[in-house]
C-alpha cells in the first residue's frame, strides 16, 4: 500500500519542467577559452569541496575492513585488491575482469568500476527524484515513460523537457542504491570474495582485530546478530568512502583550472573545446563538465544509462557461450526490471575523473587504452569495420554484443553516434589525441604539477 507522496511521482509533469531549466542553468559557467589564450579559465569559479575532518569511529572501522583480505574466501582478496588506492580506487591493471573465487581462479563478468566520487550518485530512478516518491515502483515508472520520445543529448542543450530515462544507482547496472549495499556484493559474489553466506562473514568479523569497535559503536548485542553485524560492517566501509577525502579529492588539474589556478596546455585546451563541441566529440553531453552554480565541482557524468554497443569482448570467459549476453539494466546481474526490455544493453555512464589512470574501459573491459575508446566513438557508425570484427559475410559485426531483439536500444541519437556510414568521422586523429590530453587533466593529485598559474 503506497505511503507518502506517491502522488509525487506525477509531479514531474510540471515541477520537473521548471527544475530542468534551473538544473541545466545551474551547470552553466561560461564558454571555454578561445584558442590562443593564455591557458587560463576566463571565468574562474570557487569550487566547494567537502569539509575535511578526522574520520569518525565508524569510518575508521570501515578503513580497516576495506583493507582486510581475510574477508575473502581465499584469504588474499580485500576490497582494496580490486579497488586499489594507488589507482584511484580502481583496477590496478588492464585485466578485462579480475580473478576471484575461493582459489582465485574464476574470472569476473565485468570490469572493475572506480570507487571515487560515488558518494553523490543519486538513487536509481526513471527520471530525476527530488520529490521523493516513496514505495517507488520502477516497472510502473518505466511503463509511464515508455511512450515519451527520447531527446538528443548535446552539450549546452537548453531544452526544458526533463529526460524520463533511467539514472542513478551503483554498479554498472544501478542495481543497488547505497554504498553499503554495493560493498556487500563482492563479499558474497562467488566470482569475487566468494563467501558462501552472511554467517561466514560474520564469523570472520567477530574474530577480526577490530571486533571491539563494533561493540563500542553499536552496542553489546551486535556480535550476536550476524545479519546486523555484516550490515554495520558494510556501512562502516560506506562511511569510509563518504568521509575520507581520498575518495573525493577534487584535486585534478582541471579543478585548479576551473578555479583559475592552473593553465591548460594548447593541446589540453583544444581537447576541452572538442569535449564540449556538440558537432565534434560531444562528450560533455553525458560527461557533464561544468560546476554547479553553488560551486559544486563537475562529476563528469549525468548518471544516465546508454546502450553504446561496445564490441563483444573475447577476453571474458563468460563470452565463450555465444548465447550469453550482458544486458545491463535488464540482466543478468540485475533482476527487478527484466521486463523493461527497452533498457536491455544499457549501462551507467561512469565519471571520467581519473579515467586516464585506467587500463580497462566499458562494462566489458573491451578496451585498454583511451586511444581505442576514442576510436570507438569516432568510427562506430562511419567506419564500423575499424571497430567490430568481420562476420562470415565480410561485413563488420556491428553491435555484436547485443541480441537482435534489442538493437533498437542502441544509441544512434546522441552525437557522434548519429552519423551514417561513409560520413566523415566527428574527430581527426589529432582531435582524438588532444581530447586524450584533456582527459589527463582529470586525474586527481595534481597539486605538484608545474603548470600551476602564478598570480
Amino acid at each position, binding site marked *: *500500500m*503506497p*505511503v*507518502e*507522496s*506517491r*502522488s*509525487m511521482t*506525477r*509531479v514531474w*509533469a*510540471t*515541477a*520537473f519542467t*521548471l*527544475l530542468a531549466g*534551473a*538544473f541545466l*542553468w545551474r551547470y552553466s559557467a561560461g564558454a571555454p577559452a578561445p584558442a590562443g589564450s593564455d591557458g587560463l579559465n576566463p571565468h574562474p569559479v570557487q569550487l566547494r569541496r*567537502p*569539509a575535511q575532518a578526522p574520520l*569518525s*569511529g*565508524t*569510518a575508521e572501522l570501515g578503513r580497516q575492513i576495506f583493507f582486510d583480505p581475510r574477508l575473502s574466501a581465499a584469504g588474499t582478496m580485500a576490497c582494496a585488491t580490486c579497488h586499489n588506492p594507488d589507482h584511484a580506487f580502481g583496477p590496478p591493471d588492464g585485466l578485462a575482469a579480475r580473478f576471484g573465487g575461493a582459489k582465485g581462479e574464476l574470472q569476473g563478468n565485468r570490469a572493475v568500476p572506480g570507487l571515487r566520487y560515488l*558518494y*553523490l550518485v*543519486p*538513487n536509481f530512478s526513471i527520471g530525476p*527524484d*527530488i*520529490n*521523493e516518491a*516513496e*514505495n517507488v515502483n520502477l516497472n510502473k515508472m518505466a511503463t509511464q515513460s515508455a511512450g515519451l520520445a527520447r531527446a538528443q543529448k548535446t552539450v549546452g542543450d537548453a531544452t526544458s523537457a526533463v529526460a524520463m530515462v533511467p539514472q542513478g544507482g*551503483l554498479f554498472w547496472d544501478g542495481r*543497488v*542504491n*547505497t*554504498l*553499503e*549495499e554495493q560493498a556487500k556484493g563482492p563479499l558474497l559474489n562467488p566470482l569475487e570474495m566468494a563467501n558462501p553466506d552472511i554467517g561466514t562473514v560474520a564469523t570472520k568479523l567477530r574474530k577480526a582485530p577490530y571486533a571491539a569497535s563494533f561493540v*563500542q*559503536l*553499536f*552496542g553489546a*548485542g*551486535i556480535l550476536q*546478530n550476524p*545479519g*546486523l553485524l555484516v*550490515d*554495520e560492517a558494510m*556501512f562502516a566501509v*560506506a*562511511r569510509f*568512502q*563518504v568521509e575520507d577525502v581520498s575518495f573525493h579529492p577534487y584535486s585534478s588539474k582541471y579543478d585548479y583550472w576551473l578555479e583559475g589556478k592552473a593553465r591548460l596546455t594548447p593541446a589540453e585546451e583544444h581537447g576541452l573545446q572538442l569535449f564540449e563541441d556538440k558537432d565534434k566529440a560531444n562528450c560533455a553531453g553525458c560527461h557533464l563538465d561544468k560546476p*554547479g552554480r553553488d560551486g*559544486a565541482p563537475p562529476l563528469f557524468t549525468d548518471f544516465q544509462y546508454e546502450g553504446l554497443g561496445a564490441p563483444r569482448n573475447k577476453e571474458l570467459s563468460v563470452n565463450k557461450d555465444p548465447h550469453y549476453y550482458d544486458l545491463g539494466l535488464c540482466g543478468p546481474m540485475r533482476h527487478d526490471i527484466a521486463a523493461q526490455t527497452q533498457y536491455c544493453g544499457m549501462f551507467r555512464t561512469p565519471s571520467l575523473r581519473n579515467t586516464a589512470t585506467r587500463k580497462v574501459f566499458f562494462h566489458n573491459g573491451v578496451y585498454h587504452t583511451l586511444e581505442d575508446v576514442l576510436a570507438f566513438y569516432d568510427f562506430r557508425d562511419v567506419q564500423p569495420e575499424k571497430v567490430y570484427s568481420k562476420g562470415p559475410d565480410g561485413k563488420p559485426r556491428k553491435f555484436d554484443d547485443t541480441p537482435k531483439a534489442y538493437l533498437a536500444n542502441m544509441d544512434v541519437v546522441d552525437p557522434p553516434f548519429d552519423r551514417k556510414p561513409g560520413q566523415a568521422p566527428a574527430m581527426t586523429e589529432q582531435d582524438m589525441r588532444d581530447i586524450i590530453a584533456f582527459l589527463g587533466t582529470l586525474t586527481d593529485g595534481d597539486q605538484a604539477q608545474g603548470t600551476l598559474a602564478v598570480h
Partner: protein
Amino acid sequence: MKKILCAAVAIGLGAALAGCNSSSDSTPTTTPIKHLVVIYGENVSFDHYYGTYPNATNPAGEPKFTAAAGTPSVNVLTASLLNNNPNLTNVANGTGVSNPFRLDRSQAATADMNHDYTAEQQAYDGGAADLFPEFTGTAETGASGAFGTTGLVMGYYDGNTVTALWNYSQHFAMSDNAYSDQYGPSSPGAINVIAGQTNGFVVGKSSFTDYFIADGQGGKTMMGDVDPTGDTCSSTTDQGSLTGKNIGDLLNEKGISWGWFEGGFDLSLTNADGSTGCSRTHTSSVTNSLKADYIPHHQPFQYYKSTSNPTHVRPTSTQSIGQQGDAANHQYDLQDFFTAVKAGNFPSVTFLKASGFQDAHAGYSDPLDEQTFVTQVVNFLEQQPDWNNTAVLVLYDDSDGWYDHQFAKVGNGSFNATVDQVTSAGNCGTKGTTAQASGVAGKGAVDGRCGPGARQPFIVISPWAKANFVDHTQTTQASVVKFIEDNWLGGERLGGGSFDATTGSIEGMFDFTNGGKNPVLFLDTSTGLVVSKPSAGLPQ
C-alpha cells in the same frame, strides 16, 4: 520612535528593552504565554530518539551527554525490551527479527520506514508492538551513504546524535506520553495539529484512491498523503481538500495574529544552487540527498479554502505578516517569520516547518540537519525581547513507522474492513464499546481516524516550562489546538468531531507560578552541546 527602538532591539542587540514586546502582548490570554511557536518536525517515534534517555553511549569523538542529577524516570526501553524484545522473538518478522539497537551518529542518514495507516496498526498487533520489522520495516533506501538493514525499524539514536533535544529535555520539559491523533503519515498528522479532524475530505483530482476512505456516513476521511487542491506546487494528478474548520478559522474570528511558515514557500526566491519556484532545493551535507524545500502535503492550512494561499502570494508588508487581511492569508515562507520577528512583529501563534532537508524525515533528511534547524530557531527566539512570554513546542507529524514499545489503548475506533487492523482484521477497537467520534457533518461516528497512533517526542521550551521535567499526561497533536483555544479563545472548541474536545492538556509541562524564570539555554547548532553564546545563523 519607540517602535523603531524596539525593532532595533529585536534585530538582536541582545538586551531586552522594557516595554518593547510586540503587539501580540496586548492580546488577552489565560496563561502568561503570548507567543506560541510550534516546530512541527517529520517522522520520529519516541523510542527512535529517546529509547535510552537519559543514557548515551558516549563513544570517543562524539558529542558527549551526561544526565543531570535528579532527572526523573521516563518510560523508555527497559533491559528486557533491549535484550529480549518481542520483535526479536516473534518469528513472523522473518529475517528482520531484531532487538532495538543503537544507531551511531555516523548513521544519521538512514532509509525511511513504512508509515502507512494500516501498516502501523499491523505493527502494533493489538498492543503487542511486536511486528515492526514485518509491517513497517524499510520502504526506501535513502541516498548513497545511508544505513540500511532488515531490522532497521528497531534502531534508535541516543544523546550522541540527538544531543540538542536531550539537552532541551534536561533543562525544560518533555512528555513521554504524547501520540499522534491517529495512525498514518504526514498529511493526516499535519491536519490533526491544526484541526484534530481529518474527516470531511473532498477529492480534487485522483489517480490513486489509497489516501482516503469512505467514512460510513456518506463522506470521506483522509488517512494518507495527498497534496492540497489548488496549491501551485501540488501534484497535477492527485489533490484533495477538507471542509471542516481549523484553528486558523477560530483565530481569524478573534483577529489574533498567526501564521504557518514553511521552507520553500516563496516561489520567487532563487536558492544558492540555482533552484527556484516550486523546485527550490537543498542538498543535505549529511544525507547527500537533493530534496525540494517546499513539500505541499506537509502544509495543512492549504487544504482549507478559508486559510489557504494556493498561489503562494507574498505578504503585503513585513508589518502585515500574521495579520488578518494580509494578502498571504497567514501562509508564508520560513524566512518571513524571522523577518517579521526582527521587525517587532511576532505573531501570537506560529507554526514552523523546515525546508525538506532539515525536517528530520528519514531518507532525505536526518536528525543532524534537524538539530541545526531547531537550535538555530530556539537560539534566535531566546534572544528576542518577547522570549519572556514565549513557548516553543517541538513535536512531530507522524512516527515514520519507527519502533516504539508503548501502545496507546484505542481511544477512537474505526471499522473499515480493509484498512483497519490494529485490534483484528477490519477492527480498530471494539464496535459498540470503543468511543468513536463523529465527522464534520456531526451526523454520527466516522471511520478512518483509528487512534491514538504512535508515541512521539513532545518537548516544551520556555521560560515558563518546568525544568528537567517529564509529563505523563496522555496528549496528542490536537493538544496543541486545545492549548491555543484555552489560552487565547476562552476554551472554544472546533466541534464537528474534532479531537480538541477529548484530548489531554499540555499545561502539565508548564509552571505558570514560577515567574517565568527558567533560564535560556543556547546550544551549538552542529553538536547540540551547551554554549554560552549562540552562533548567528538562521535556517535557509
